């Protein structure tokens, strides 16, 4: 069977174009509506909703700041609180220098008299200068210092109290006997206020004196 297209080409094109126009118009208006809608929504959020929230937050901040300013003596109260918080740390940091007298009494042989004691916490050194009847006692003293250990209450084991013990100066004369200077490094824990330290001194130290400095000067 033969079919004839009785519509002319131009008519077909016209129908096709009209359909196309309708589709494109619909899509274009939809697209514009979505885009303009988004624009309006963004505008409302940015310039109405968020501005309101910002205004409320600003008012809250202003009123609460004012309330805080009106608390009587607030800066003094805060200062006392701040100092109170800092003080224990500062007290824990300071060294207990007075322990050195007890330590030296325990390790210094009774025949030795000291005339100078220097304790430098910045480099952890201890230096003692004194006199002794013989050089042998100075040797015993140095040996005692080298072998002295200490224990911390509540902690296990013991550590060396002094290291790098050096006879840095030495002299002998008929009138003054033997003069010497011993320098050494000390373990910082010896003077730590939070530790309860017990010195463990070798048995042959010969330290039985109550005064470590020279009796007559």
């Amino acid at each position, binding site marked *: 069977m033969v079919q004839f297209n009785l519509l002319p080409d131009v008519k077909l094109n016209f129908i096709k174009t009209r359909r196309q126009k309708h589709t494109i118009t619909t899509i274009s208006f939809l697209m514009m509506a979505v885009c303009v809608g988004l624009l309006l929504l963004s505008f409302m959020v940015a310039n109405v909703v968020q501005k309101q929230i910002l205004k409320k937050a600003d008012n809250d901040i202003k009123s609460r700041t004012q309330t805080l300013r009106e608390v009587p003596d607030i800066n003094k109260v805060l200062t006392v609180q701040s100092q109170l918080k800092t003080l224990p740390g500062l007290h824990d940091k300071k060294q207990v220098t007075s322990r050195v007298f007890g330590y030296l009494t325990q390790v210094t042989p009774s025949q030795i008299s000291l005339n100078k004691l220097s304790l430098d916490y*910045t480099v952890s050194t201890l230096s003692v200068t004194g006199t002794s009847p013989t050089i042998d006692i100075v040797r015993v003293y140095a040996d005692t210092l080298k072998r002295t250990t200490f224990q911390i209450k509540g902690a296990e084991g013991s550590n060396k109290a002094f290291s790098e013990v050096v006879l840095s100066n030495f002299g002998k004369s008929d009138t003054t006997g033997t003069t010497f200077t011993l320098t050494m490094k000390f373990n910082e824990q010896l003077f730590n206020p939070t530790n309860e330290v017990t010195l463990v001194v070798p048995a042959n130290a010969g330290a039985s004196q109550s*005064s470590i400095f020279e009796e007559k000067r």
Partner: protein
Amino acid sequence: MSTKTPLTKRAMIDKANASIVLLVSVAAFVSVFSLVATKTLFSQIQYQQRVISKKQDAARQLEKNVQNAEKLRTSYEAFTGATTNVIGGIKVGDSAKDGDNAKIILDALPSNYDFPALATNLETLVSQQAKLTSITGIDDEVVQSSNATSGTPQPIEMPFQLTAEGNYDQIKNLIIATESSIRPIQHSVVEITGGQANLVLNLTANTYYQPAKTIDYKSEVVR
């Protein structure tokens, strides 16, 4: 008639095509304009959201601070109202140990740099134990005045040197006194020379002051 109809249809097709082009152009322009404007507004929204978030945080923090300030004030009143202070002195009295707890704390860690006051304190402390020979240090008040207040104060060292004379017990007691002072004194170098009856102590040490704490209101730039 037969020749006119195709021409009209063609004209209508051309017109329709022209309308489509115009419509698409307008739609494209409006859409692009809207999208660009939306993008700019979206950036503004994001930025404003960051600002809102920071401001709300600040408001919440301030609310907490207001509540804590009241509690702190109550605790402070209880602390300073105690009849016996933290070092065993009485609240109202004239001796060195007397005064309310706030005064004791500010004596232990002053809130301003005052070297002359430190020298006076040290003189009193040393004189109770041994003979004071000298107190030296640098009065750094002009430089330290820039640290008068702070939102986050830190302790600042005040170095000094003192020389004192006394017998063994006096010097030992003096050292113990510096250790047990309510004002923290950190020894740097301790040098003792002389004999049992006449020792000379040279002490290099630091004590501290900590600037007053204030409520630090500050502005922050949100990027």
